């Protein structure tokens, strides 16, 4: 893995990639065994000396929170990706007004913090919508009164903007010869896009996609600030109820680490299933 990104591509951040995971065999070195023992002792101390009596009471709610977090993660990633494909494509082939619009959208979204976008949608639009009777009486109103649609919207937009830029690079990176060959076969523009250009671009973008998905998982706790009850919100509730500071936060960090680990392993499995030659 080379960490040197080309100068003009501003990626989100470096997330954990499948290559970073240790293999099982690498744990059996003398110093690693000692370190593992120390870690185990630390974990034992944390489990024994800190307060965990609140845990059984909140376990069902924690499970529910994890499900909400995962639902947020997957729905926004999929929706965001569906939005990112046209965003990237338009920036490569589109007429200049669309091109400018798409790159402006990416710049604005990537230039402002997600928390601000989330609050703009929730507090801003949330305070404007009720003023219009047409919206108040439409079938959408029961959803717009809730907070989760705003969270989904903000996370989707953010993912689309970051991934749109990645897809732009991926679309440009597909070798021109392959597209020419497809054209020479007499494929129509749509068939060419569906059969050659998009699959090749996704293939190229896949490693970055892993990282972006991990980053999206790390962005989900922000929705707790607009009263969506995800796992972070459940832990905040525990801290409010019991006045315990550290234990819930440690558990939360552990939960996110496990989720990240599962995601990374799942993506590694997925990537290995796609046949590549030489690499």
């Amino acid at each position, binding site marked *: 893995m080379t960490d040197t*990104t080309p*100068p003009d591509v501003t990626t989100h951040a470096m997330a954990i990639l499948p290559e970073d995971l240790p293999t099982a065999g690498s744990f059996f070195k003398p110093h690693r065994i000692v370190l593992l023992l120390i870690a185990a002792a630390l974990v034992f101390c944390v489990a024994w000396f800190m307060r965990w009596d609140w845990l059984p009471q909140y376990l069902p709610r924690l499970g529910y929170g994890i499900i909400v977090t995962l639902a947020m993660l997957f729905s926004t990633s999929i929706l965001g990706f569906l939005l990112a494909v046209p965003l990237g494509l338009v920036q490569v082939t589109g007429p200049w007004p669309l091109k400018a619009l798409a790159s402006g959208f990416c710049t604005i979204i990537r*230039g402002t*913090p997600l928390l601000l976008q989330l609050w703009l949608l929730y507090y801003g639009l949330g305070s404007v919508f009720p003023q219009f009777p047409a919206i108040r009486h439409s079938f959408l109103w029961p959803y717009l009164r809730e907070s989760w649609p705003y969270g989904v919207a903000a996370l989707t937009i953010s993912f689309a903007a970051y991934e749109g830029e990645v897809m732009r690079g991926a679309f440009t990176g597909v070798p021109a010869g392959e597209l020419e060959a497809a054209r020479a076969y007499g494929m129509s523009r749509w068939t060419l896009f569906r059969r050659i250009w998009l699959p090749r671009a996704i293939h190229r973008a896949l490693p970055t996609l892993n990282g972006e998905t991990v980053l999206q998982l*790390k962005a989900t706790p922000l929705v707790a600030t607009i009263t969506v009850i995800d796992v972070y919100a459940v832990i905040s509730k525990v801290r409010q109820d019991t006045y315990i500071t550290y234990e819930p936060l440690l558990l939360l960090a552990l939960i996110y680490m496990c989720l990240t680990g599962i995601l990374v392993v799942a993506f590694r499995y997925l990537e290995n299933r796609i046949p590549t030659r030489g690499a």
Partner: protein
Amino acid sequence: MAADSFINWGLLALEPPGWGGVLLHGLLNSIQIAIGGYAFGLLLGVGGAFGKLYGGPILRDLMECYTTIVRAVPELVLILLLYYAGTDALNQLLGLIGIGTVDISGLAAGIFVIGVVQGAYSTEVLRGAIKAVPAGQIEAARAYGMSPFKVMTRVTLPAMLPYAIPGLSNLWLIATKDTALLAVVGFSELTLVTRQAAGATKAYILFFCAAGALYLALTLVSNFFIKIIERHSRRGFVEQS
């Protein structure tokens, strides 16, 4: 008049009836934290990268744990954890020595928290950049009899800069945006100030858009300077397409 009542630009005035001055002060706080956190993170990053590349097996494993944990846990959770645990641990330490407790300023805590998060990422960026430096250059420096420290300051660090700058400029942009997360622990940086102003005046959209414009301006100005620095650091390199 209808347009006047829809957007009340007077709310953004710099003097007290308007909130413009408050917003700018929040922006100043954000920039302070971003600069401090970034510098602290860079320090940790240089240490971490050298530890990972040249350290012993135990140091290397510990560094690996640090970067993996920080990159796997959401920034928001890390900020909460470090914000409370960090201040608490420092106070207990000072209590043990017998100095008594101190009030840790939000600014220092914010810089520490952002710095620890940034440190993990810049470790990875710098490690990649150092590995991209041709080994012969470092060997040549050693052959001249330079001490390891001199090799670092005269050869390794300058030679890796062109490889590191894209990653480092990314990190700077992330640092400016991560400061917004400190709003959740109640530090009065731009996002929290904006929310207070919006809540007080009910002009939510106006204030959030204004804050967004400030963040965007910060990003665009940064981009301008990054381009200059990048061009300067890449001088002498063959331009590739």
